[in-house]
């Protein structure tokens, strides 16, 4: 996936001279995960800039650059270090278009590694996308494969509004897939149906899509046909695709790595209850991270929902 992300940067920088990359270590080092590898050598130090080690600086300067004709793609080194930048995101990036009636705009992409599972140190493994989904005026996108990372990142850079782009660290190197460098974007604000099925709808995003697909394969052996939906754009959410699936299957299990309390799963469950209650044949279930602090890595796989937890939740739901 990491090569697909670097490739999307390269394509868009080649085809749009307004695109600039900023962040800590994005230049000669190519990013700590190598998401920007080779870009500074190719496009120069003006267009691929190492910033001082300050996240509010990165977000604040991105606002200034975007309102004055550039399209910054900013890297935050880990989601756990995003919080100093939130002031700029909540108070400016998300509101600039609205509060100036469209006079000034913020076409910014803020990319960040998301989630755990790679034995990283403390503060490097959290999934706090719900914080971002609560902010009006921004999009929150989380790809689940190299091809979707490529296509959705292109769409995010081309979008005239701010996009938070959450990259699941577990997928950076876990998954190999041929991706053509054709500059073709994938649609934002849409779910992707990764697997069709008739008995139960499994809704998930990011790294949990892999575990959910594995669970669906196991469930197939037990004669449960699961439809797997990758939400992809977490905000604004494409609830129509989820409702249509639930209308078909009558059952919904939501899987996410983030803590359950006020997680995006709660919003999905509420929307399905509001608009699809009479299609449901069983209670909605959530399989989520615990409402605890993400533990250090000796226990991280006890925190992240396992394939077995997903299988058990689906079987319980389908047992009626």
């Amino acid at each position: 996936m990491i090569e697909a992300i670097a490739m999307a940067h390269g394509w868009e920088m080649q085809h749009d001279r307004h695109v600039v990359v900023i962040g800590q270590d994005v230049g000669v080092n190519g990013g700590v995960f190598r998401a920007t590898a080779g870009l500074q050598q190719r496009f120069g130090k003006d267009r691929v800039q190492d910033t001082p080690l300050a996240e509010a600086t990165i977000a604040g300067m991105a606002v200034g650059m975007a309102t004055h004709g550039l399209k910054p793609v900013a890297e935050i080194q880990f989601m756990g270090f995003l919080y100093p930048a939130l002031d700029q995101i909540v108070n400016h990036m998300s509101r600039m278009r609205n509060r100036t009636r469209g006079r000034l705009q913020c076409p910014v992409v803020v990319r960040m590694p998301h989630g755990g599972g790679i034995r990283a140190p403390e503060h490097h493994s959290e999934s706090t996308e719900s914080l971002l989904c609560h902010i009006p005026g921004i999009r929150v996108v989380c790809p689940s494969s190299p091809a979707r990372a490529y296509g959705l990142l292109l769409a995010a850079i081309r979008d005239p509004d701010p996009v938070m782009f959450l990259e699941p660290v577990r997928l950076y190197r876990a998954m190999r897939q041929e991706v053509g460098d054709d500059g073709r974007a994938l649609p934002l604000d849409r779910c992707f149906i990764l697997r069709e099925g008739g008995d139960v709808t499994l809704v998930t995003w990011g790294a949990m899509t892999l575990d959910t697909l594995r669970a669906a394969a196991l469930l197939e052996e037990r004669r449960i046909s699961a439809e797997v939906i990758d939400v992809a754009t977490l905000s604004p959410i494409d609830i129509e695709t989820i409702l249509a699936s639930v209308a078909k299957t009558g059952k919904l299990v939501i899987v996410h790595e983030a803590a359950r309390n006020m997680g995006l799963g709660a919003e999905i469950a509420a929307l399905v209850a509001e608009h699809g209650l009479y299609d449901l044949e069983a209670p909605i279930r959530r399989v989520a991270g615990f409402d605890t602090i993400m533990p250090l890595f000796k226990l991280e796989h006890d925190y992240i929902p396992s394939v077995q937890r997903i299988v058990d939740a689906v079987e319980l739901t389908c047992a009626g």
Partner: protein
Amino acid sequence: MKTAAEFKIHYRQILDPAGNAVAPLPPFAQDTALLLRMYRAMTLVRVFDAKAVNLQRTGLLGTYPSCLGHEAAHIGVGAAMLPEDVLAPVYREFGTQLWRGVTMTEILTYWGGDERGNDFAVPRHDFAWCVPIATQTLHAAGAAMAFKVRGEARCALAYIGDGGTSEGAFYEALNLAGSRTLPVVFVIVNNGWAISVPVAAQTAAQTLAQKAVAAGIPGVQIDGNDVFAVRQVVGEALEAARRGAGPCVIEALTYRLSDHTTADDAGRYRPAQEVKDAWALEPLIRMRKFLLHAGHWDAAREAALLEECGAAVDAAVAEYLGRPAPATDAMFDHLFAALPAQLHEQRRIARKYASKPGGP
């Protein structure tokens, strides 16, 4: 022992409170039309400001941050900037904004609770008012970065207050600007008070200008009630920045003669004698005295100016009061470039329950 580093902060003043030149007059002092334009602008913003406070007191305007006493700082900066430069204001620099083309009607529209006031007809590229303290300094640095990347000889100018210099974003902006030699000027308007907290409680530093030192950029302190010094020193800094010489911090010493905003009562925390003393130093007096001594001004012209400013303010107020409230859809119109389908249902509900006339 060796000295690893040392610094000095210079203080610059051209006109003393009596309107006498205490330093060589800058070349622009020969431009009488410019001086009269600056004095007119200072007077206009003072008349406007008093009217705005009255509008709030009578329920016709929301909370309003008065700029009383800041006229020299604000007009001096405005006169030093070029139209293509970019201003990142805080929320009370109305003098600079009026000079740059923002209208009194737009100011009243925003402070009257309507985002359309931020949609300046001129200048389109300036930032809007910035309420979260110090965050605008990073926007100015970012805009300066855009100019630098494109090789444009333009400059950004960020205002900040004395209280704002305690915020992390301020230090980050100085650090960024210094480390990348950005064309940006930071003007600290030190009016003595951050709501109820005096400067001495913000920092142990002797000056706020010296905050520049740690960022490796020049800092200078000026008499912010002296429009000559402000115009001159800010002009020098902007020219240097446009030439590629990098950023600068200018601390303009002035005094907030008003409450913090119309929601504040400075009498709760500020000695009356201090305010009384500050009135003797206020900026319009010395500019008027200078013009009188130079033979460019008299009582009749002063009376005519006040009448003209009053009429201009009244016309702007009438235009503001005559403007219908925005339609309910305005909440949704500019949230994104195109409203996502997911929000159409909420817009339908908002329309149905719209309370204000002017809704669809």
